[in-house]
């Protein structure tokens, strides 16, 4: 009897301590990029128009907050309408794809070992050109969610009518919430940590895995003296940081060109 009471108490305590336990996993099956070391860098091919550039940069920075990898924006290798995949990276495209029912779409290709070899993200301007979806909230949500799938994440929740979880991997009718579903949340980062906790014996990425010093470099500078990283190009060799000057009116931009390691 005593044992049973103690067990029940445990269950209640665990239930209160981890209220999001129901969301324990939202990995997209076993799919992940193969790499031999963490952290790694995933290249996002920029095939988007100027209307999407800022959102792509923002999404890249958002996902780079993950402890296991960075994403970097590289020149696109396809035409937006066709949006053909390229090995080792994710091509991001926008075009008027027609009234086919989807706002955004992510496709991945895998090898025999459930390793992602390439991916594409399509953003459907047929809908984003309408008043309903031509909003920063919708653009941020979809631009964040689709690359999230290409990393191996599923949706946290697929009910559009319940309250937001504060994650772009959560379906919603109101991206702004509150809470806002325009960015990843901690649970997404934790899920990525879990997906990429192991390393593989080969690499499907088109960009070499960064060593630990590079991660330390990125993390230190991003949170350090130059402020927030707002753009990264050429495979992470050039970066732009933004910092408030302290007077509330001016901002300091620092453009960094890294030496090859």
């Amino acid at each position, binding site marked *: 009897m005593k044992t049973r009471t103690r067990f029940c108490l445990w269950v209640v305590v665990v239930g209160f301590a981890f209220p999001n336990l129901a969301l324990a996993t939202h990995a997209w099956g076993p799919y992940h990029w193969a790499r031999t070391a963490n952290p790694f860098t995933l290249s996002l091919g920029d095939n988007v128009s100027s209307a999407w550039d800022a959102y792509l940069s923002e999404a890249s920075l958002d996902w780079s907050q993950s402890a296991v990898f960075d994403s970097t924006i590289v020149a696109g290798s396809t035409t937006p309408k066709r949006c053909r995949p390229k090995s080792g990276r994710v091509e991001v495209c926008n075009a008027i794809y*027609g009234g086919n029912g989807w706002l955004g779409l992510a496709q991945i290709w895998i090898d025999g070992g459930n390793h992602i070899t390439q991916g594409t993200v399509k953003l459907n301007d047929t809908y984003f050109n309408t008043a309903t979806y031509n909003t920063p909230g919708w653009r941020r949500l979809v631009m964040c969610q689709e690359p999230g799938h290409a990393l191996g994440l599923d949706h946290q929740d*697929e009910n559009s009518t*319940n309250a937001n979880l504060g994650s772009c991997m959560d379906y919603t009718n109101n991206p702004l919430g509150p809470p806002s579903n325009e960015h990843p949340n901690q649970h997404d980062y934790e899920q990525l940590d879990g997906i990429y906790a192991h390393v593989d014996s080969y690499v499907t990425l088109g960009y070499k895995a960064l060593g630990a010093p590079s991660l330390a470099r990125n993390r230190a500078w991003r949170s350090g003296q130059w402020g927030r990283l707002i753009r990264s190009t050429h495979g992470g060799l050039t970066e732009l940081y933004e910092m408030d000057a302290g007077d509330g009116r001016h901002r300091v931009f620092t453009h960094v060109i890294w030496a090859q390691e």
Partner: protein
Amino acid sequence: MAGGWARRRLAGGSVLCSLVCLLAAAHFATANEARRDAPLPKGKSSFATNPMDRAGLIGQLRAADAQVREGDPVEQPFFSVTGTFVQAGGEDVQVFEYPDTAAADAQSAQVSRDGHTIGRTKMQWIGSPHFYRGGRVIVLYVGDSRNVLQMLEAALGAPFAGPDKPDKPDKPDKQDR
């Protein structure tokens, strides 16, 4: 003495069990025979002799709504054939016609029960996706018009994928968390 009685009783139980099994098998065989001979539900084709195709579907939809008409082609990156928009009940539904039922079967097997994943493609839909199957066709309707849903269900039966068939178990309302 007691052991002999028990053995006889067990043997008797086995015979009884076998009899029940035989009767059950005979019942199911008869029932299946009767099911095969029974007329198909109204609005459905006999796939064995005349599998549903796009023209047949449009004909059935027109029986319910004279305004049904074919529209432009529609490409979906997750389906191997080009589809056709069909306007029914004032809304666009997408009809994908395959060369044979086996091809349609193989394609529909790729669609997750909730309709958010097809093969290795994930979509952010603008509304609820409803997928129907019939013969050589797969029908996709994104929306919630009761009229359209009823028309499609009358022609094709219940959807095989959609919002009422979640992949994941129901979660508590997020507001409770």
